[in-house]
């Protein structure tokens, strides 16, 4: 920006200049420690570059130094907003490798906890996105409801955020007696609140203006960039591992996979609300159908899977959560690679960012819903 006053009278010399801005790692809207290096032309983004790794803890390496069961609590720290889902993915991977048959009741309990966790995770995404467009009140309404989910989770797992409920071979604790009336109350309470939030946020014209046609991810793009989960379904691809390749008790439960078609920020926001409703349905059925029986399969104290290799994928809160586990027959994993959906999803940001306004970038980023714990691992 030339401040040379002699030349200011010439219109030709009033040229503009691109400038770079570091958004993050400490920024209110980067949801953790993500850094986006934005090249801006005024308020329009010309180029975007992701800088990751501020939360890199080396989970893959940690796994190689822990026994199979010891690593379960660490998976909760991957995507700390959906810890039970990560636990589930990991224990299922080990079970798949060892060929352990999990008791049916345990499968149902897992489904209940996983869906509660999914609701909690989606709620946080909805809340933080709402906060990013500065509807602070909406954010707090979401947080209040999320609190109720966390109370339920705490009642069962003992932890609000990073639970270690699922173990290799089953779950550690049965549902407490007081859980059933509470969950019934919760299932009756939430739909009304969801409707209220839909009117307050989705119905708001300013919100629609902010979100519609912003950060569009088409189905082709999503597949190309490996974007999965609600983001893929918002782009119009009906792909949900719970339905396509049912694991755990999902095959016995009736639910729908919501799909929208535009793939913009608004659809990505809306699809979470729709998925929460389906999760409520799943929980309701799972609690009703809950079979009697043991909650833990017979598993040796020291888990030593046979030498071999397994890849297990499940529907996490943010997309396909994959675990590629290589065992050498010892008590510790030889190699564990975690395919975090957020890590892949965030890779699409440089492709969709150019041409956006600064504010659009936040809306698009928030609705892709990445969790830096999972990105950096």
């Amino acid at each position, binding site marked *: 920006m030339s401040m040379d006053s002699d030349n200011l009278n010439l219109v030709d010399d009033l040229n503009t200049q691109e400038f770079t801005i570091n958004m993050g790692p400490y920024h*209110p809207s980067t949801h953790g420690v993500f850094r986006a290096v934005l090249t801006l032309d005024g*308020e329009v983004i010309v180029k975007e570059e992701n800088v990751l790794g501020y939360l890199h803890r080396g989970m893959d390496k940690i796994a190689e130094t822990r026994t199979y069961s010891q690593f379960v609590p660490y998976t909760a720290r991957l995507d700390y907003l959906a810890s039970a889902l990560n636990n589930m993915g990991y224990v299922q991977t080990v079970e798949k490798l060892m060929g352990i048959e999990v008791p049916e009741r345990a499968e149902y309990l897992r489904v209940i906890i996983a869906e509660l966790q999914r609701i909690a995770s989606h709620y946080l995404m909805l809340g933080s996105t709402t906060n990013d467009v*500065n509807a*602070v*009140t909406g954010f707090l309404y979401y947080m209040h409801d999320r609190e109720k989910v966390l109370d339920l989770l705490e009642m069962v797992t003992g932890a609000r955020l990073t639970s270690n409920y699922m173990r290799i071979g089953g779950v550690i604790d049965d549902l407490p007696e007081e859980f059933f009336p509470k969950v019934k109350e919760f299932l009756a309470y939430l739909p009304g609140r969801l409707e209220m939030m839909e009117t307050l946020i989705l119905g708001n014209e300013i919100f629609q*203006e902010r979100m519609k046609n912003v950060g569009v991810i088409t189905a082709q793009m999503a597949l190309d960039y490996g974007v999965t989960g609600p983001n893929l379904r918002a782009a119009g691809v009906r792909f949900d591992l719970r339905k396509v390749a049912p694991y755990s008790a999902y095959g016995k439960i009736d639910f729908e996979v919501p799909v929208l078609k535009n793939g913009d920020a608004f659809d990505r926001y809306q699809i979470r609300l729709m998925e929460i409703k389906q999760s409520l349905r799943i929980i309701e059925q799972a609690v009703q159908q809950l079979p009697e029986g043991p909650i833990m399969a017979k598993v040796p104290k020291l888990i030593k899977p046979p030498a071999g290799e397994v890849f297990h994928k499940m529907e996490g809160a943010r997309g396909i959560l994959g675990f590629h586990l290589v065992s050498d027959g010892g008590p510790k994993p030889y190699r564990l690679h975690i395919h975090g959906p957020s890590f892949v999803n965030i890779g699409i940001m440089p492709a969709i960012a150019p041409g956006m306004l600064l504010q659009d970038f936040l809306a698009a980023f928030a609705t892709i819903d990445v969790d830096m714990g999972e990105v950096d691992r």
Partner: protein
Amino acid sequence: MDSNNNITSIWDFFQNPIIMNLLIGVVYFAAIAAFITVLVIILMWMDRRVAAFFQERLGPIKYGPQGLLQPVFDAVKMVSKGNITPRNVDKLVYNLAPMLIFMTTLLVYAALPYGKNLTVVNLNVGVLYLIAISSTATIAILMGGWGSNNKYSLIGGMRTVAMIISYEIPFAFSLLGIIMLTGSMNMTDIINAQKNVWFVFLQPLAFVVFMITAMAELNKSPFDLPEAESELVAGFITEYAGMKFGLVYLAEYANMFSMAAIAVTLFFGGWQGPLLPSWLWFLIKTLLMVFFIMWIRWTLPRIRIDKMMKLNWKVLIPLSILNIFLTGIGIKLYQYFTGMGGV
């Protein structure tokens, strides 16, 4: 020199009209400053409590009755904080900006009619003065944004300029209808003209435009782009700390009150009201207006900058011009039917 003579000379000195005016000015200034300080404490408390209530929370309740002393503690904290000036800032501009921002706020208070015969300066061009003063803050905000040597601040400052300058136009136009109705720019005249019917009923369109632009002038959500927390960290106040930040903060709340007071004066009959003293009516109405501003603020998300510009140039300005036309036609029709002569 004997002492008697000396006293007389001092008395004479004070008799001098220039000095007299100056002294009265100082007293007025002190009164307004004290009023603003007390007001801001109440407004801060109110803002936090109202925001909390909208969000199903209670807000500050621990200190003082209903948490009323909380802003005092906040203020003490703010004053006792270190006066940090970051390296590589444009020191003069950086330090001057908060003062100027507060200054413009203070100037608005001079022309507000607080009650019957209770105005600091009863200006003939009161409305014009308000419009003029409230837009000067733009320069101060740009100074803060530029002087901070921070890109977020700069974007915040530039947004302010773009926003306030363009929103000045519908803001001024929306008030023209009232000036046409009363034929005066004097605030007291405008209030007196609302004896029978408030202008909000005569000028509903103008009121809507006024409220939207007033929110923009205040930098309040949905138009809080200059200090957009989730995008620009804190916009032009990112680099300010301690009392400099406090001044900006103070100005923000004071602005909210003055803007509400202007709205009340121009559209809701000012201090007019039955039974209660006039200043109390003014306060009640203004605080209700402040509540309304907070209500909007805590409900709506932030608008996008290009949409905001579009709203201004494509909706608000045509609407405000339409309002002027309608007012003109209305006046002419009124004159035609009542048989009164021209203005």
